[in-house]
């Protein structure tokens, strides 16, 4: 099977992070799909550690907020090196307003022996006029295989947040040729 669920984690209570450990090295690419909220109010940061580290990272982002704000940043712009996106925090309104940031990260060739690229797409939602569509180009400047991924937020990851890790395996079928 080309695409398989490796693990799904959903938080019954607030936690410091969501971690996928001992990632099998039998796939080609990884896809991480998250639904995340921070326990504090306002917009917070969505962060990602690779193999337990927030270091050795380069990234470049592009974002818009729906109220005229648009920008592009890098890992030298003042945010932590392991920044992936913005995430909405807790809101004080009715329970129906509670929403989670959706983020999707793709890691090609995660088990290879070169630096690791990744691509991140995310969108916040809090039923107001200001929300963020945030995309990021990431690079983990290590030759090691990726064996763990840890998702966290600026403060604490709220209950109800979830993450699913998929493995994708390249292959051949249907008689397609490549040259």
């Amino acid at each position: 099977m080309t695409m398989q669920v490796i693990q799904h984690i959903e938080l019954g209570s607030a936690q410091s992070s969501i971690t996928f450990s001992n990632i099998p090295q039998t796939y080609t690419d990884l896809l991480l799909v998250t639904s995340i909220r921070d326990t504090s109010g306002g917009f917070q940061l969505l962060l990602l550690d690779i193999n337990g580290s927030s270091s050795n990272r380069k990234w470049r982002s592009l974002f818009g907020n729906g109220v005229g704000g648009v920008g592009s940043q890098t890992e030298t712009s003042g945010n932590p090196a392991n920044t992936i996106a913005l995430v909405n925090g807790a809101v004080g309104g009715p329970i129906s307003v509670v929403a989670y940031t959706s983020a999707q990260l793709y890691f090609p060739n995660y088990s290879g022996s070169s630096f690791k690229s990744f691509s991140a797409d995310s969108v916040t939602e809090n039923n107001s006029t200001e929300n963020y569509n945030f995309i990021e180009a990431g690079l983990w400047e290590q030759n090691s295989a990726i064996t763990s991924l840890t998702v966290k937020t600026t403060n604490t990851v709220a209950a109800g947040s979830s993450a699913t890790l998929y493995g994708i395996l390249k292959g051949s079928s249907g008689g397609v040729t490549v040259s």
Partner: protein
Amino acid sequence: MSYIALANITLSSAASSVTFSNIPTSVNGVALRDLVLVIDGTASVGINVSIFFNNDNTTSNYPYVRMIGNGSTTSSDTANPTVIGDLQTTRGMIKLSVMDYSATDKHKTLLSRFDNPSSVLGAIALRWANTNAITSLRVRDTANAATFSIGTTFALYAIAG
């Protein structure tokens, strides 16, 4: 099985282009709906990457719109038809989806994300102005001068539907 690996290549030498041919509309009786192409690696110099379907090299048949950021400024343009993203001399990636590639009653639309952490990133929406089913795709440097580097990978998948 809804996500199907069709073909892949890891370059053992630099290549000016990569072509996927004989793309079917079904596999083992399962109809295929969309294509996904993942490119991960580098180029000999910083390049725009172009895509051509079914040997159609008429660039005006590939209108596009792009949004792009370089870490400090942002822009948007429609100036470079056929382009699906950038590759640089430092590691980056392009991931694109072609919707309804096997349909014969519509133009084909493509959404691409390109990511170069040391240079530029962005998103592209492109249309191939042709109603034929896609049976081949070729990617190369837009200027047709540079090469994809050794170790760069290209993987093609299909989504059933």
